[in-house]
């Protein structure tokens, strides 16, 4: 379905929290330049899949290849360095640090101060509201602004793949639209996107393809357009 060699390929991924298995063999792939959505009911294992790709969790079995290289089980900080940025569920900005400090830390692996400044300038151009609030504590921002900050922070590492976990969580529909516009624009500039989203319509709107996760396995995989045309299929899977 996707291009010849996928940028990211996940196969047979098993992950457990302690003794409790959460993923039982996830298979999926993402080609360079795509926006791929991962959808599914609460607790299906979407976040677990993302956390394992970005190195926060170690799989018990299975492989994750990134640009032809095996990265399963690698430490998170090496995976960021390899070009995968993960914008986690519930944002996880640093609330007691300023907007500027949050961004500086997003560019933690930059090789020079000038590089940090240059990327921060790009972030401020994309999110003018963050520039206005750059000395403000991140915890005092509104939900939408915090989500923008979380995305801007992830982009500070100039990733080739941006992973977004429920970017519209807790946002007003208008704010959510703004976030999705930004995601589209980021993708148009060449960043591949893997997004988990509760709002299936929003997800299928921006994605070209989608995987449906059901209790730790991929149950369906199709073009976003064809899923949108079959709402009854979707509701059967999403419960």
């Amino acid at each position, binding site marked *: 379905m996707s291009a010849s060699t996928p940028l990211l390929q996940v196969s047979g991924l098993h992950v457990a929290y302690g003794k409790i298995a959460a993923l039982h063999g996830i298979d999926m792939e993402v080609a360079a330049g795509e926006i791929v959505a991962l959808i599914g009911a609460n607790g299906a294992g979407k976040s677990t899949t993302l956390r394992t790709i*970005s*190195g*926060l969790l170690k799989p018990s079995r299975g492989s994750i290849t990134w640009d032809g290289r095996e990265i399963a089980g690698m*430490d*998170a*900080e090496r995976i*960021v*360095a390899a070009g995968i*940025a*993960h914008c*986690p569920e519930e944002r*996880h*900005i*640093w*609330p*007691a*640090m300023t907007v500027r*400090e949050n961004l*500086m*830390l*997003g560019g*933690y*692996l930059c090789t020079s101060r000038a590089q940090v400044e240059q990327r921060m300038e790009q972030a401020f151009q994309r999110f003018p509201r963050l520039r206005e609030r750059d000395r403000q504590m991140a915890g005092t921002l509104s939900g939408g602004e915090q989500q923008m900050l979380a995305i801007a*922070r*992830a982009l500070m*590492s100039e990733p080739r793949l941006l992973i977004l976990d429920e970017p519209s969580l807790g946002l007003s529909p208008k704010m959510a639209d703004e976030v999705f516009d930004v995601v589209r624009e980021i993708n148009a500039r060449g960043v591949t996107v893997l997004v988990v989203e509760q709002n299936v319509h929003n997800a299928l709107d921006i994605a070209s393809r989608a995987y449906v996760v059901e209790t730790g396995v991929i149950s369906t995989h199709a073009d976003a357009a064809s899923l949108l045309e079959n709402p009854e299929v979707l509701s059967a899977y999403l419960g």
Partner: protein
Amino acid sequence: MDMLLQFVANGLVSGSFYALSALGLTLIFGLMRVVNFAHGEFYMLGGVLGWFVTTYLGLNFFVGLVVVVVAMAAFGWLVDRFLIERVRDQGEEPSILLTIGLSIFLTNSALLVVGTAPLNIAGAVPNAPVFLGPVVLTQMRLFAVAACAVLILAAYLLIRHTRLGRAMRATFQDPMAARLAGIKTAYVYASTFALGTVLAASSGMLLGSIYSVQVSGGGLISLKAFVVVILGGMGSFAGAIVGGLILGLAEALWGGYVSSGTVDVIGFLIVILTLIFKPYGLFSTQVERA
């Protein structure tokens, strides 16, 4: 009146040592959630090592201080990597037991090696008196206060304005987000512990050059550092400094006007009053941490 000024000056001098020592404790707690009961022993080791490099080996005081800082940073780093690491994220009790065990081990090892006699550290400047109006201090005390201030300022700048300092605060506030940004959190924890150790050890060496180093005195030092941290607010940078100065002043005034034999009781009084009236300390850690 003149006596009062003298007591205040004395209190501020010992208060700045308390502040520096408590800073190490509060940083390790504020950033790492580790209650370090071996803090006083790190302080004592700084003094013993300071005695060894200056009086015993004959190095210049400043060279000796640098040696102590480097050696104790390495020591703190290793303690974190090999001991604290094993109890990380397991709540506070395992780290309390671990550091109590470490304190017993360090005191007794030091007693075995250098014995019980007080050790004198050759000072950086002469112990000549300095007259500031009605107040008399010694050059050595003024120097030590200045050194404390420099170390406190250096720690502040490190935490506020360097890449490592930002990584420390980020790791404390949200370790997962820190890892996702590419921060090696294990190194950040070790660096934080090393910083706290260095602050304790350098105040141990500075104070040892004014009084003397008591190998078995770690317990009392830990106790006073805890008083300061409870008064100032667990994990608060400003609290450690203000709390240290308050304890120093209170002890000096009590010693001057009430009874000099019972100054150590002041610390307990302060803890009791703090816990009754301001249980989170003067600078609540809810607002400002480290």
